[in-house]
């Protein structure tokens, strides 16, 4: 069974289409890059998948259910682009908070990652730098044993060393039953990690293929292909 299925999904904001007739299926065990220029619909795509938004038209199926329903929520781990946790909480309190909310939360994994990234569990979110906040949110999202991870630009605000750590965490966390969808502009950094890529432009899927197949058929990296396709 597919982990994610979009059938003719359209999302209008006012009269403007953020997503326009998207058909897409993601199978289990895949790490997928969701790529495209600013405003192409990446974040809308992810918010629809986790049920934060409802489609204007079309159908979405996540792990066999509808997005946003409790049974679906329990299988989807979403890392939003913006900070979405209470800023007065400490990192340790956030770990408790997530454990209360999600049955699949792996406390030991979260604490290990906080320690690996030298984040003091007693530090309040309010007192954290922008990069540290992003790290904490990513730790919370990746510490769940979900079937679908939706990561909206998880590495944009962190230094290259942390970026490597985060990417290796995604690999170490790999589960053949689960899929990861990553939206990012840092294509060269994530390319080796991806099974397949989806190019979005003006809310439409203009390309969906395997990374190594693209490299073979086009003779260039996905990063180079992106620069060619979306040349300004």
């Amino acid at each position, binding site marked *: 069974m597919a982990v994610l299925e979009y059938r003719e999904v359209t999302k209008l904001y006012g009269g403007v289409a953020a997503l326009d007739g998207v058909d897409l299926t993601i199978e289990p*065990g*895949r*790490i997928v890059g969701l790529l495209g220029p600013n405003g192409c619909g990446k974040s809308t795509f992810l918010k629809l998948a986790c049920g934060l938004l409802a489609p204007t038209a079309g159908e979405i199926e996540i792990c066999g259910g509808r997005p946003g329903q409790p049974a679906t929520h329990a299988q989807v781990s979403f890392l939003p682009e913006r900070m979405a946790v209470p800023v007065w909480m400490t990192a340790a309190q956030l770990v408790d908070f997530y454990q209360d909310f999600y049955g699949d939360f792996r406390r030991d994994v979260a604490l290990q990652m906080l320690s690996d990234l030298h984040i003091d569990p007693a530090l309040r979110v309010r007192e954290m730098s922008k990069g540290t906040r992003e790290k904490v949110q990513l730790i919370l999202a990746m510490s769940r044993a979900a079937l679908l991870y939706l990561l909206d630009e998880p590495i944009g605000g962190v230094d290259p060393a942390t970026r*490597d750590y985060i*990417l*290796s965490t995604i*690999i*170490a966390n*790999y589960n053949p039953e689960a899929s990861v969808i990553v939206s990012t502009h840092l294509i*060269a950094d994530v390319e*080796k*990690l*991806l*099974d397949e890529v989806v190019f979005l432009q003006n809310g439409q899927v203009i390309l969906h293929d395997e*990374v*190594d*197949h693209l*490299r*073979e058929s086009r*003779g*260039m*990296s996905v*990063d*180079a292909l992106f620069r060619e396709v979306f040349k300004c």
Partner: protein
Amino acid sequence: MKWQFSSDVPIYAQLIAQIQTTIVSGTWPPGERLPSVRDLAAEAGVNPNTMQRAMTELERQGLVYSQRTAGRFVTEDRARIEQARLQCAQRQIQTFLDGMEQLGYTREEIRLLVEQETKGES
């Protein structure tokens, strides 16, 4: 081992080439047990499915074999490793010759230059 990737070649093909080098150079000796696909993927920073694909191809080439419960090992067939080493050498030489041809050297000039360059060595 140190993993390096160029941008224009499929990643699984680069993984195969780098693991071949590791085996024919003896860094992974015959009969050595390999790390798990997941550990190798994490070390190289690549997708586990891509690493699996490379391993499947290396098995097909007879350079590694897997035992259902014990894991995956470098072949103990030294003749096969030697043959793979020769193929790696031939690829290196071909790359070198292509580069020299681009510089406009004839085969004879290349041979003389290599002789001069290696004189006194060994």
